[in-house]
């Protein structure tokens, strides 16, 4: 089975973990489709939106250190002997994976490149909203790990929304269709909440779980094992990026649960 990943970050710990999880299940990744956007691009975007103060905030955020609490990503990397700080180019070199640098994941040329490689499954390891032409390029489709239960919690920041709404946190693997998190669902994996958990560490734990859950589903597809598919739905509302005050509330909710 020919499998590819999408990526937009120069350093992409999730893609690095995914490649490793898939290799452990004898599913080699054929290529990484990378449309890297540099730090300058991020700064320009902030400047346009929030002016000078916004750009400064982006620089401060970038310079910020790790938060206290568990560090599941670092632990997962150490268990597997992975260096998650490596750029995708180096990761691809180490794992004999082709790195296809593209201008944009939305372009026709990118979709053509995916089709030309007879790709069966493309996995979302970064890229935001995808154009239909890319969704239709791999023969089986584009897979995503969504950090909450679907179809109930569509949208972004859904891990935090799960906490706010008292829903069990977890990861849903689903095919991406033209809607927002409305594609066919392959499965849900619950996420355990550790003691001393913070929002950051829970998100990291969800990243580790996402890589595992998606690799399991791809392995199943490769072995032609039956998958349990559930329809997605756009009948439920979409959740949007959280305001910092509600993020704080989600963090407080997490502390209450841990206590």
């Amino acid at each position, binding site marked *: 089975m020919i499998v590819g990943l999408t990526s937009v970050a120069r350093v992409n710990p999730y893609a690095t973990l995914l490649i490793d999880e898939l290799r452990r299940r004898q599913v080699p990744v054929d290529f990484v489709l990378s449309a890297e956007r540099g730090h300058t691009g991020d700064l320009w*975007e902030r*400047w*346009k*939106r*929030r*002016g*000078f*103060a*916004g750009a400064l905030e982006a620089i401060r955020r970038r310079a910020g250190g790790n938060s206290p609490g568990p560090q599941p990503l670092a632990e997962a990397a150490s268990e597997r002997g992975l260096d998650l700080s490596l750029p995708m180019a180096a990761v691809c070199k180490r794992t004999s994976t082709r790195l296809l640098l593209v201008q944009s994941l939305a372009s026709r040329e990118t979709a053509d490149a995916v089709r030309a490689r007879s790709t069966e499954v493309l996995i979302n390891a970064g890229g*935001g*909203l995808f154009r239909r032409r890319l969704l239709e390029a791999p023969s089986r489709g584009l897979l995503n790990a969504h950090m909450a239960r679907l179809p109930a919690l569509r*949208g*972004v*920041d859904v891990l935090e*929304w799960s906490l*706010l*709404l*008292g829903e069990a946190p977890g990861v849903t693997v689903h095919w991406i269709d033209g809607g927002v998190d409305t594609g066919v669902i392959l499965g849900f994996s619950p996420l355990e909440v550790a003691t001393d958990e913070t929002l950051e560490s829970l998100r990291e734990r969800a990243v580790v779980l996402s890589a595992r859950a998606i690799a399991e589903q791809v392995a199943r597809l490769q072995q032609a094992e039956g998958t349990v598919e559930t329809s997605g739905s756009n009948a439920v*509302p*979409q*959740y*949007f*990026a*959280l*305001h910092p*005050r*509600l993020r704080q509330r989600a963090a407080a909710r997490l502390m209450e649960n841990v206590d």
Partner: protein
Amino acid sequence: MTSALLSRLRGTLRIAGSLGHWRVVARDLLHNNEPLLDEDIHLRAAMDWLARSQDVSGCGGLSAGYSFRRGWLPPYPETTGYAITTFLRYAQRTDDNSWLERAVRAGDWEIDIQLPEGGVRGGQGINDEPVVFNTGQVMLGWMALYRATTESRYLQAALRAAQWLLQVQERDGSWRQHTYEDTPHAYHSRVAWPLLEVAEASAESKYRTAAESQLRWVIGQALPNGWVDGMSFRRGDDPYTHTIAYTYRGLFESGLRLANDTGASALKLARLGADRLLRRYELNKPHPHAEPWSLAATLDWRWQPSDDGSSCITGNAQIALLWLRLAHVDKQQPASSLRWLNSALKLLDQVKATQSVGSRHAGIRGGVPGSNPIWGWYLRLTYPNWAAKFFADALMETEGVL
């Protein structure tokens, strides 16, 4: 001709003559937003600005606002009326009676200038022509004062106004006379709301009947996508978010006060409109995790921006307030309530980012501009009192929801 030129020249000199003006223009040119501070600081600054707008008029009414061209504007009966509710709420919040006194001064001034037939004078300053919408807005203030003080003069003034509204209402429930441009407007849903308050306080069913008739007319203007025709000041123009918010808020507050089919339809339409606004706002951003761009100043019937060169900050504060009201009413359903709250907080941050709390200029400090950038079409180079009022209302409503 010469006097017009001189007046223009004076206006230009006034704009150019203040460092405070230049600072705001430079800030907006550079997209250098004001810092987001503690909620209390923003609220206090807005309230102090509203108090100044009352003090400069010297009559109890609130100056319509501060204009870079014309300085402090004449008192505005319409918006003085609904600012009363803001003073009262702040008085309750701070337990400071001076705000209650301000509300009383404003309410008494409104009674002093109420027209003999019961209507409220249109426009800024003291004009002879009554206007339907303005009458409804002042009634909201009088009714709030009546509830706060139990002084019957406020109820009597509201009843005279309500009686006049009934006299000039059309058979189909709309108002065509004594309206802006002599056309019916969907934002008259905000006139149905005070009529329902008067009906409840007076136990007179004719006011309820008139309000329901108006609501049915507004609901009749709705398209399947939740858009309501006739939300703009002028027929054929795309409405500002300011009058869009007026329309849905009127439907919402009226719907809450009516336990029948008309009320249910009004609420349903208000929710649909509020949700379309939320999606318009939240989906307009460079990527899903980014903060949304500002809402466009005007929208068309497909909910598409038709003037995205500027944002109507007044309308943004009102829309945030509408979402907060929904969050409040939906409090028992966290999935819905928190979704409204989340978007309202983000939109309010964008309003805060236009409020200069530290300016030394009395017309600017704590005020909220009509538009962002300040030279946008909606009330160009002006800080209207109703922008500060709705902003303060929204900040106080936030406390009730969080």
